[in-house]
C-alpha cells in the first residue's frame, strides 16, 4: 500500500509540471490586454501600459517569466497578485476556509439526503416512490444553480426572512476573523453566534449540493439495485436473515463502493470553488477569485490556484483509492 501511495505521489509530479507549462502558455494566449491594463483601468494609455509592463517584467521573454515562476514555486513561493500585491498563499488562506465550509455543507446535504433517497427508490423500483425520487434527481441536476440560489434567496430571505442570503456571517455581529472558518470563528466568539454561522450555510449548501444530490441519489439507487440482485443477497434472504440485516451487512456494504467514488469526485470538484453559488450568496471562497483573476489576466494567481486545485484533486482521488481498500478487502494495490 505504501509503495502504491509513493508511486502515485511521484506520478503526480510530471502531471503538475505539464499542467504548469500548459497553463502558463494558455493564459498568455488569452485575447485582450494584460495585467497592466487591469491595474490602470480606464487610465490605461499605451505609454503607461508599456511602463508598468516593463517594471513588473510582463515584457520579459516567456521562457524567462516561466523559469522565474517555477524557480520561485520550487522554493515554496506561489507568487503574488499583480493587482493587489497580496501573496497568493495569504489570500488562499483567507478564502479557502469558506470553500471548505461550503463543500462540507453541500456534501452533508447531498449525502445526507441523496443516499436515503437512493435507497428508498431502490427498495421500491419502478414504483411511484421511485418516480418521485427520479423527478427530484432530474430537478437537481437540470435546474441551474443560480436560478435555484436566487429563488431560494427570494423565498427564504426576502419574503419569509427565515434565512440570511449574504456572506458567511452577519456583519452586524462583528465576529473577528481568526481562522476564517466562519463556524469556528463564531464558536470562538461565543454568545451562540454559531447559530448565525450555520444559518448562513443553509441556502448556499442546498444550492451547491443540488447537483451532487442528484448524482449520489442516482448512483445509490443503481448500485443498491445491482447488488440486491446478486446471488449472495438471495442466499442471505434464503437463510432467513432479517431485511434490516440483509440491507446493512450484505447490500449496503457492497453498494458503497461506487457511491464512495462519486462522493470523492464531487468533493474534489467542490473544493475547487463554486463560482455561481459564491456569486449569488456573496460567499468569500476561491471560485469567484479564479474568475476575477482570469478577467484581470492576473497570471500568477490563476497559475498557482489551478496548480493548488490539481494537488487537491489528486489528493482526494488518492484518498478515495486508498479508502477503497478498506471498504473492500478484496482490492489490493500493487
Amino acid at each position: 500500500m505504501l509503495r502504491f501511495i509513493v508511486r502515485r505521489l511521484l506520478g503526480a509530479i510530471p502531471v503538475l509540471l505539464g499542467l504548469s507549462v500548459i497553463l502558463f502558455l494558455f493564459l498568455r494566449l488569452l485575447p485582450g490586454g494584460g495585467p497592466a491594463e487591469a491595474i490602470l483601468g480606464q487610465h490605461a494609455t499605451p505609454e503607461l501600459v508599456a511602463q508598468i509592463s516593463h517594471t513588473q517584467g510582463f515584457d520579459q521573454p516567456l521562457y524567462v517569466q516561466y523559469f522565474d515562476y517555477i524557480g520561485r514555486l520550487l522554493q515554496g513561493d506561489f507568487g503574488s497578485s499583480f493587482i493587489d500585491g497580496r501573496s497568493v498563499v495569504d489570500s488562499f488562506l483567507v478564502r479557502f476556509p469558506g470553500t471548505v465550509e461550503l463543500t462540507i455543507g453541500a456534501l452533508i446535504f447531498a449525502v445526507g439526503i441523496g443516499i436515503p433517497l437512493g435507497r428508498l427508490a431502490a427498495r421500491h423500483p419502478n414504483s411511484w416512490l421511485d418516480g418521485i425520487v427520479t423527478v427530484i434527481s432530474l430537478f437537481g441536476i437540470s435546474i441551474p444553480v443560480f436560478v435555484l440560489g436566487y429563488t431560494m434567496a427570494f423565498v427564504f430571505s426576502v419574503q419569509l426572512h427565515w434565512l440570511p442570503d449574504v456572506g458567511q456571517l452577519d456583519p452586524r455581529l462583528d465576529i473577528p476573523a481568526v481562522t476564517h472558518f466562519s463556524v469556528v470563528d463564531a464558536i470562538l466568539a461565543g454568545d451562540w453566534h454559531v447559530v448565525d454561522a450555520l444559518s448562513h450555510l443553509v441556502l448556499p449548501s442546498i444550492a451547491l449540493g443540488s447537483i451532487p444530490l442528484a448524482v449520489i441519489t442516482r448512483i445509490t439507487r443503481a448500485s443498491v439495485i445491482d447488488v440486491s440482485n446478486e446471488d449472495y443477497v438471495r442466499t442471505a434472504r434464503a437463510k432467513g436473515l432479517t431485511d434490516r440485516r440483509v440491507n446493512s451487512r450484505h447490500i449496503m456494504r457492497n453498494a458503497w463502493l461506487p457511491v464512495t467514488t462519486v462522493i470523492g469526485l464531487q468533493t474534489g470538484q467542490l473544493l475547487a470553488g463554486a463560482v455561481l453559488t459564491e456569486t449569488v450568496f456573496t460567499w468569500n471562497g476561491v471560485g469567484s477569485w479564479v474568475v476575477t483573476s482570469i478577467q484581470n489576466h492576473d497570471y500568477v494567481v490563476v497559475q498557482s490556484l489551478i496548480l493548488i486545485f490539481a494537488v487537491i484533486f489528486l489528493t482526494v482521488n488518492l484518498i478515495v483509492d486508498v479508502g477503497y481498500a478498506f471498504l473492500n478487502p478484496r482490492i489490493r494495490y500493487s
Partner: protein
Amino acid sequence: MKRLASILAIAALVASACTSSSTTPAPVSGGTLVVGLDGDMVFADPSLVSDGNSLYVAAQVIQGLVGLKPGTISEIIPVLATDLPTVSADGKTYTFKLRTGVKFHDGSDFNAAAVKFNYDRWQAYTKGDLQDNAYYYGAVFGGFGTDSNVATVAAPDPTTVVFTFKTPQSNFLISQTLQVFGIQSPTALQKDKADTTPLKDNKYAQGQGESMVGTGPFMFKDWTPADHATVVKNPNYWDAANAAKVDQITFKPMGDSTAKLQALQSGSIDLAQTISPADVATAKSSSLSIIDRGQSCNLGYLGLNQSVGGTPTIYANKDVRLAIAQAVNKQGYIDAFYAGQGKVPQSWLPAATTGFKAEAMPAYDVTKAKASLTTAALTADQLKVDLYYPSNVVRPYMPDPKALATAIASDLQAVGFTVNLKTEDWHGGYVKDATTGNLPMFLFGWTCDWAGADNFLYTAWFGYQGGKPNAQFGWSNDQANALMLKALQEPTVDAANADWGQVQDLLAADMPTVPIVNSTPPGAFTSKVKGFVGSGNAIEYFNTVTLTK
C-alpha cells in the same frame, strides 16, 4: 418512531436557527451600517489606489486640505485647511492656512509638517510597485521626483503650507479633492513602513494592521479581503458638529446586481453603492429609496475613429459624423436603459464640471440626418458599418451595452446605414482595441477622476499622446491641443475655463465623437437609513447617516 423524533429534533434546531437569524438586533448606540460595495478595495493606503471601491471607503477615513461640498462634484470647500488657498499672481504659489487642534486617529498632531511629509513622500515614490500604483500623483503632477511639477512644499510654521510649482497648474485645487491626496499620519506611515516594496510585504497597504490613519469621522478597523472592510466612529473627531452618528460601517463587496438587490430587500445590507437601472422599478416597489445622485460626473459616448490602422475611415468625413449625431435618439436611450437616471449631454463634459460650456449639440432629427448623409455622398458599400459594443461588463455610463448598441444600430439604419453589430469581451480585448485605435465605431465612456474639464477633454480623450492625436479617435486638431495645453498652465481657473470653452466650441464644430448620456448611476437604501446625501461622483460621506429600527 425514533427516526421521527430525530427528524423533529433537527427541524426544531433549524427553526431556532432561522428565528434567531431573522431577528434584527436592536441598534446599540448608533448601530452598524452595512454598505454593499461594487467590489473589493485594492489597497488600504489611498495614495496607492485609483479604483472607486478603495476611494469610497477612504472617503470616510482620510481627509485632504480641500474637499467637495457633499452632494456636489465641483464645489470645493476647505477641509483640513481653514479656507481656500491664496494664489500668487503668476499662479505658481498656493498658500494654505491649516486648522489647529486636529489629531490623527493614532493621536498624533495634524500640522503643516504632516502635510509636507505626505506630499514629499508621494513625490519620492520609487519606480516599480509604488509609482505603478500611485497613478493619480503621476497624472496630476506630471510624474514623480524631478519630473513632478511640484517644486517645493514648505511648512514655514505649524499652520501654514506653501506649494510652489515649476509652472502654473490650473487643475491643482480641484484635483486635490481626490481622496488619494488625503493626509495620513506621518507617525503611522513611518512606524508601519508604509513605503515597503514589494507591496505583498507592505502591511500598511494590505490593511493588516494600523492602516489608513487619517483625521476623518471614521477610523479604519479591519479588512478581510473579498469579504468586508470595517470602519468605526472616531470619538475624538475634530468637527464635533459633523461627527459620525453610526458606530460602525461594514463595507461588503458585492459584484452581482441581483444579489445586491435581494440583500437590500431582505435587509442583509442597508445601502447599495449602485444597483442596476433595470432594478430601479423593483427597488421602488420594495419600499427602497433610490439614491439621488444629482449632478452627473460621467459621459457615455459613441466613439468614431477617423483612422484605423493608418487607413482613413468614413468617419473622417464630418458630414458622416454629423449625420450620426443627428440620427441617435439620446433621450430615448436614457428613458429605456438608464431608468431616466441621466441627461442628454450639452457638451463633452457633464454640466456641473468646472470649465463646462453648453454647446448647441445636434438634436435628434431623422430628416436632417438623412440630409447630412446625402451631403456626405457615401457609396452603398461605405454605408455598411460595424458598431462595436463590449460584452460581460456594466459601466455607470453603459448599464446595458448590448441593448444600447442595438437601439443605436436601429436608429442608424433608419437614416440609411447598414449596421453590423460586433462585440468583444470588455476584459478580453475590447478596452485594448478601442484605446489603441482598432475599432471604427464603438461604445465607450469616462467616469470623472475629478470634475474638471482637463480630466475629460485632455486626459481621457483629445490630448495628444506622444505628440500624436489619440489613436482612439484619430481626431487631429492642433488648435484644440494647443488650447488644452495652455489651459492646463493658466494661472487662474477662470482663465483656464475660457480656454476650455474654446476647446468645446471646436469640438461642437467638428463632432469628433457623439456624446450620448451623462448618467447618474442609481444606488438604493432601506427605510432604516436616514440622512444620506448622494453624489454624482460616488464620493459620499456617511457621517450624516443615522439608522432607525
